[in-house]
């Protein structure tokens, strides 16, 4: 009897080992006849209103499963490793689109089923057949006009030694190197190693002035930093957090362009609930829906009709009130040169 019990226990234990491995195959394959009832989305956390998701679920009698990434690279990993098995929509950004299309990792989107896509401003829309832009980010400089020792008008002002330990900065090779390259007068997506090496030298000085990478908005509002190199959405948060006492201003750039990036949805190759994914994309590009989303997440938005329909608070947000909105550059795929960037980035962080 004891033996029997122990054998049973072992088999239960062994079975337990494999429980995580099974895949849910209950969903409708093809989905031509029956509409899908399940939609799996992989995207940034804190980036879409829960209420809108609930409404979509109710309207379509479906269940939306949101999973979250912690890094842009996660999404690329999912996409290149056959993401269609797990997800129907994956969020990524404009910089990767070219390679994703080239590598055949994303499905062409049938825009006949997404009439609301016409609301999106075409001028910024890369790889138009393969993605639907969602929100966008300017990466610019904001500073505290009372505590910053320097009035910032260009990237070169950031390496002023007076700013030592004052800058809260976003991180990542492909965010940091472009501003150095622009400051030095080069192409922000340079593939010339000498230029990148020069940019590295510039960033060494910049790094001296940085107090911390990440958490820029908190560090601005709690006084740890007086300058931030960050996204306009985060600056908006910091400004509204300070409310009437807001003393943050957007750097008044005269010449230097700022980086503009898009977060967009793609349908991974082999996605299983394409019909519902299209319905979702049409839903989220609806001006009223997006306008409601912007109340909760006041980021810059490429959906012109939604911006038109948005609240006055959104339209008058000081974080989006700057003159050089047209003077932007985009992050482009640099191919294998990325390893050169990464090597210098690592060297920068390790410190010589």
């Amino acid at each position: 009897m004891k033996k029997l019990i122990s054998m049973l226990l072992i088999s239960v234990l062994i079975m337990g080992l494999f429980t995580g491995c099974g895949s849910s195959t209950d969903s409708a394959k093809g989905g031509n006849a029956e509409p899908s009832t399940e939609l799996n989305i992989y995207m940034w956390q804190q980036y879409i209103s829960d209420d809108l998701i609930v409404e979509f679920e109710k309207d379509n009698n479906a269940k939306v499963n949101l999973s979250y990434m912690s890094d842009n690279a996660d999404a690329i990993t999912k996409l290149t490793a056959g993401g269609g098995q797990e997800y129907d929509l994956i969020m990524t950004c404009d910089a990767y689109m070219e390679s994703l299309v080239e590598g055949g990792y994303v499905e062409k989107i049938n825009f006949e089923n997404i009439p609301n896509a016409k609301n999106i401003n075409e001028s910024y829309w890369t790889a138009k057949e393969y993605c639907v832009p969602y929100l966008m980010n300017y990466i610019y400089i904001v500073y505290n006009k009372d505590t910053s020792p320097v009035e910032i008008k260009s990237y070169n002002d950031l390496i002023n030694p007076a700013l030592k330990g004052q800058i809260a900065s976003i991180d990542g090779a492909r965010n940091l190197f472009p501003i150095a390259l622009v400051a030095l007068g080069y192409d922000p997506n340079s593939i010339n190693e000498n230029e990148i090496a020069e940019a590295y030298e510039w960033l060494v000085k910049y790094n001296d002035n940085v107090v911390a990478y990440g958490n820029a908005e908190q560090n601005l509002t709690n006084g740890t930093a007086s300058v931030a190199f960050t996204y306009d959405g985060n600056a908006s948060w910091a400004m509204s957090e300070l409310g009437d006492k807001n003393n943050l201003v957007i750097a008044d750039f005269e010449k230097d362009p700022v980086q503009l990036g898009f977060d967009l949805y793609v349908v991974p190759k082999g996605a299983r609930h394409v019909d519902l994914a299209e319905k979702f994309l049409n839903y989220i590009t609806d001006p009223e829906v997006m306008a409601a989303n912007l109340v909760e997440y006041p980021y810059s938005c490429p959906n012109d009709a939604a911006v038109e329909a948005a609240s006055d608070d959104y339209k008058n947000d000081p974080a989006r009130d700057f003159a050089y909105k047209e003077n932007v550059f985009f992050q482009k795929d640099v191919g294998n040169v990325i390893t050169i960037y990464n090597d210098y980035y690592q060297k920068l962080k390790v410190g010589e």
Partner: protein
Amino acid sequence: MQKNTFKRKTLPSLAMAGPVSLWMILFVTLPMLYIIYISFMSRGVFGDVVYKFSLESYETLLDSTYFKVILKSIKAAFVTTVLCILIGYPFAYYIAKKPKEVASKLIMLIMIPFWTNSLMRLNSWLLLFQTSGPVNNFLLSTGFIDTPMSFVYTDGLVMVGMITNMLPFAVLPMYSSIEKLSRSLLEASADLGASGRTTFFNITLPLTFPGIFSSIILVFIPSLGIYTVTDMLGGGKVLYIGNIIKNQFGSIRNWPLGAALSVLLIVITGLLIYIYTRFAKIEDMEVL
């Protein structure tokens, strides 16, 4: 006869050790072999792994940058370990000398903070010490300082974070070691006229060495690989080997290099355990 031995000897040990071994093979050995395998592959344009043999990752490791990082990480892990032992030993000693009921409560006190996620704990350090945080406000209001001190994103706060994260791993093995120490030995020592100090250095310390050694292993190895503390409390400005590995698998997307770095970390760990076995029998290692 054959069958009988199987039933009497093999089956019970298989039943006992089987599941654990299977577990270890599936979740420790296989992933480790996979990491070693990946480390000999090459990186694709996309940051994907191209299954073509290459020693490139190991050649990259020879770059002085990585050497510096490893040296820096070992130094930080070493300081953490020394401080954890210095703080942990008296603490463990104090607990071990208390009656059983009190001791178990004190042990609980060490464990309770660890019911909270470590990222939460790290974040609370940031909130406490930030420029407009309670600590600075208190110091300002009591007039100790005129301008807020910058505690956050300094090496000091990183060290505080490391120590608070690692202390239980130092205290617990030393506690069990000190607690096992026979009272009669100490009494005998005192009877023979040894001072408290002599007894401590000649009896207590040598006999609790296995505990100290396991504490060193248990603190040093995780501190070497940890990256959350430096990421959060160091403001991402200081990179240790853990951060570099994380970046290779994350934003930089060079898995073979990340794997090669992990292999290096495994080798360092293995070396440490080897050194340990030279000093003490592995069976002596205090486990709870």
